[in-house]
């Protein structure tokens, strides 16, 4: 059976769901960030697949930009986590309840 666009899209959807599940279920901020990375990678895979099957390079350019923005996002996010850890000494989201009524 020939590998078509759907195969890649289904892998991408499955990976996105795994990342989302990680963000929802895990309580450690760093592991939640890894879930975000998984979701970004799933989007990248879908874009590259579309770019390949449409014979159009715009998708690959977009993936290039997404990788760069993801790197910037991770830098700032991890700096925020470090700043939070200095104040609260925890990376567990269940301990961060100061906005709870």
């Amino acid at each position: 059976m020939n590998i078509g666009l759907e195969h890649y899209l289904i892998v991408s959807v499955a990976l996105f769901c795994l990342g989302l599940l990680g963000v929802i279920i895990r309580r450690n901020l760093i592991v939640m960030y890894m879930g975000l990375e998984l979701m970004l990678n799933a989007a990248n895979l879908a874009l590259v697949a579309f770019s390949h099957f449409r014979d159009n390079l715009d998708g690959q350019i977009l993936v290039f930009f997404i990788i760069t923005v993801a790197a910037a996002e991770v830098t700032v996010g991890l700096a925020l986590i470090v700043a939070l850890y200095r104040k609260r000494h925890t990376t567990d989201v269940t301990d961060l309840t100061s906005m709870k009524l």
Partner: protein
Amino acid sequence: MEILFYIFATLTLLCGLLVVFNPFSRNPVTSAMFLVLTIICMSGLFVLLQAYFLAAVQILVYAGAVIVLFLFVIMLLDVKEEERRRFQKFGTFLGFAAVAGLGAIIINTIGQSGIGEALTAKGAGETKELGKLLFTEYVLPFEIISVLLLVAMVGCILLSKRDESKEAEAE
């Protein structure tokens, strides 16, 4: 080619699953290591899609920089293994249900759209063409991205700087 797709896809999903749920360890370092494996398998998929440049960038930027940053922060914070807290049964169940629903909807949409039959053209993603496109049509976004990286760098330094005025007050 087909067998390679199945191998890489299975490995990607398996390692992705182990990032999120690892039955043997809840240590963030293990998750980070499996994230590296996920990224490497995914760059194999990129090679199968003839996006050779992006496969290289994926390994260089993600496995080489982002994961190292993750490991560095884990080391810096000295994160202990996530102790098993009271198991939030309701939240976990609801999360599973929501994500399964979302996945089912998207996969159903892909199946119904018949997109696989409509698009079968094999495009060659040459690095040369990619570079030309990047520096002609997309040169403005490219420059804006460099400004974004600068902003992220400055923000990161500002966030991780110690608050000196408060420390002086405490003394």
